[in-house]
């Protein structure tokens, strides 16, 4: 396997210049926060989601970890900030599916944007958890905003 497939320029760019890093001050019932840890490597992320009127008004995060986990959080911020909750969950579902595809899935750039760069990560089973860390934390945080209950 070629290492360039894993460490694509887009991923390294997001890693070096992450978007949405630094927890934004936000309080209230529409703000949810989650802290997730990868127990095998000690990587962690805290993500704060502000969801109002079925829209994701803000996502901010703080964490420490490898390039894959940090770049993934940055891409998540870029992709989902400002989207509707339903759309965000659809993108979330597509990303999780891509990561669990073992590299067998052709990602849709229309939906996933920069996240298509993670298609290569799906071929490295040991790294899938790194890429999913922030996305799983995001879903937990979103659930805590109560925005998902409105949806269903």
């Amino acid at each position, binding site marked *: 396997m070629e290492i360039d497939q*894993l460490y694509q320029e887009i991923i*390294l760019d997001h890693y070096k210049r992450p978007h949405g890093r630094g927890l934004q001050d936000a309080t209230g019932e529409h703000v949810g926060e989650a802290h997730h840890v990868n127990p095998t*490597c*000690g*990587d962690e992320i805290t993500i704060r989601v502000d969801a109002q009127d079925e829209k994701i008004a803000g996502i901010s995060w703080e964490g*420490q970890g490898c390039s894959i986990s940090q770049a993934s959080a940055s891409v998540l911020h870029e992709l989902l900030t400002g989207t509707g909750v339903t759309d965000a969950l659809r993108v979330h579902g597509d990303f999780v599916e891509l990561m669990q595809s073992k590299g067998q899935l052709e990602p849709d750039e229309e939906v996933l944007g920069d996240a298509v760069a993670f298609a290569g990560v799906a071929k*490295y089973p040991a790294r899938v958890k790194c890429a999913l860390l922030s996305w799983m934390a995001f879903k937990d945080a979103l659930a805590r905003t109560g925005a998902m209950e409105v949806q269903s």
Partner: protein
Amino acid sequence: MSVITIPQGMPQYADKPRFDVEKIRADFPILSRTVNGHPLVYLDSAATSQKPRQVVEAIADHYLNHNANVARSVHTLGTEATEAYEGARALVAGFIGARAPEEIVFTKNSTESINLVAHAFSPTAADPRFRLGPGDEVVISEMEHHSNLVPWQMVCERTGATLKWFGVTDQGRLDESDLDGLITERTKIVSLVHYSNVLGTINATARITKRVREVGALLMLDCSQTVPHLPFDVVDYDVDFVAFTGHKMLGPTGVGVLWGRSELLEAMPPFLGGGSMVETVTMPKTTFAPPPARFEAGTPPIAEAVGLGAAVRYLQDIGMEAIQWHEKELTAYALDALATVPGLNLVGPSVPVGRGGTLSFSLAAADGTPIHPHDVGQVLDSLGIQVRVGHHCARPTCVRFGVAALTRASFYLYTTTDEVDALVRGLDQVRKVFA
């Protein structure tokens, strides 16, 4: 490295026992495979060692020609299997200088060995040496593997005893500055790692043993990294319990060892209940077999023990002193080589004295930003180099040095200086990817 001439009449380097590493490597078929198109460079022996053909063949021979359950059959196969299993026990006993094979308890791994000892402690233990309750203390250290940390936390929680620990100095040595304050009349057991799986530190135990004897406590050493790599004799070390595991010393997974002084094992309650560990069973009550059977409930890891016996024989044929010396030279070479890598920060002793061939480090890019060990390990893997990354099941040790994770290269008797060179070249490549 500067060359110093040792005067005649003094011990010379050439006097040290040595072996031909290429000849050794021929016994390990896996070492000639490729990984991602590159020759395999296996630098993760602290996690698990590779297995020589002789060990794999001994296990296969057992299953193909002698397989039966042990200690319960009158038939020929049962006798052969029992003899092989008990023969392995005797080999292991001889390997660490135990007074009798009965002092060797076969477990699943080091973790089970430590849990078995921890389980013996309770507020109501029949033997006062194992009576543990509020006001009593257990002493460990900040450089423990989780396997010698979590069981003692659990025991203290269960009994109300207090857990205390040795700190670690900036150089990665055990901080013995408050030895007398740490180990006191209240201490019931001191359980320490002998050879750190993260720092590579080999702890000097003489002062600690002396103090433990003064206060009348017990001493356990986690020798998971020791027994595979250097000569170890339980009598020389004057300890009470030693735990180690088969798969780190060329043996198979699934078999570990607890060595304990006979009189202590005899005073300990069973760990798991079941077949093989009993004397007489009636419906309401059971009396238990003497050690080691008391601690080996159920069908034991028979083929695994046979494999471990073969591993012991293999190590004995080469000689533990020769293995120790090989790794010492390799460690000195690697410490010098890694010092040439820009941005590399070694965690643990930086001299090849009182340390073994387990080297953990952090790595930074040219602009000073740390490169996460996962990324280091991934790029190295693309070059065929297998290192461990993460917190190495010793998170408090990592926290002590202010890092969440480290990259670790660890050596064994089959490791070569060429492989150390490959690691150094690989780390240059890592820094290029993350430039």
